């Protein structure tokens, strides 16, 4: 019963927090509205999101967020250096296939987003059975290194969080 009213407790909580932050003022009225939205939206969208993602180690999420933020800053400098100081004919772009050990759709989505936001890589496509992800590298001489980096730095951590 409780599961039918709150199909996604985490989503409900996120919605409440995001709504209060949007209004930028915590008053009882705003809070009631936020809670109503937090109940109504997950309830109405539940048919489209049948499973419930399990987060096994919530503390690892914080570690992951900081690692990704740091990598984004580093990535920006690297990409900026490539754009500014490298001639076009010296930029060697290539495709890299990264086999996935992750199985949950939520974890794969987070990994794909992380790859796009970080050092010189954009995730382009999944294989049909989502066992591999296709990544485009802006500039690399070592495709295997890129693949191992993604697996070790991000995928391993996501696996600990989600599985």
């Amino acid at each position, binding site marked *: 019963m409780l599961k039918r009213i709150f199909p996604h407790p985490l989503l409900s909580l996120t919605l409440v927090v995001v709504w209060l932050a949007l209004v930028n003022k915590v008053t009882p009225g705003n809070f009631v509205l936020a809670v109503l939205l937090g109940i109504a939206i997950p309830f109405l969208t539940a048919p489209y999101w*049948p499973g419930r993602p399990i987060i096994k180690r919530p503390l690892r999420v914080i570690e992951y967020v900081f690692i990704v933020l740091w990598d984004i800053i580093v990535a920006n400098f690297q990409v900026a250096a490539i754009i500014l100081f490298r001639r076009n004919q010296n*930029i060697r772009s290539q495709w890299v*296939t990264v086999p996935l050990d992750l199985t949950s759709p939520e974890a794969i989505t987070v990994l794909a*987003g992380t790859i796009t*936001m970080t050092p010189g890589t*954009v995730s382009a*496509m999944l294989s049909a059975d989502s066992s*591999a992800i*296709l990544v485009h590298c802006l500039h690399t001489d070592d495709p295997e290194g890129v693949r191992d980096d993604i697996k070790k730095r991000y995928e391993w951590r996501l696996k600990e969080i989600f599985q």
Partner: protein
Amino acid sequence: MELVTEILISFFLVVAGVFGLVGSLGMVKLKDTMQRLHAPTKATTVGVGGVLVASMLYFLLVKGTFSFHELLITLFLFLTAPISANFIAKTFIQGHLRAENLPASEGEYGWSIYDDPPTVDETTEENA
């Protein structure tokens, strides 16, 4: 104190401006679509991020209020940037590349644009 605050805020604004400029320059300079995709997804993240940090510092240190809006903009940006990049990449692959131009998926099934997913009953089992 006021001088330090102003220097700090303008530092973030200048950094943001430089990265925004480099990102836009990349759009002009790089040659093919997949390469150009790298410029807006990265160089501009720090560009927008810098402006947001500057805005937060301004409200915190000068106006004395804390504003959540900048955090939300960052959050939404990080959620939407990879997804739009993914859409563009997929559309580009669909229109311009064939399966032979891409590396093999190293699995039983090919890339999702060219190959059908595993049969339906496997997925319904998961959802039930």
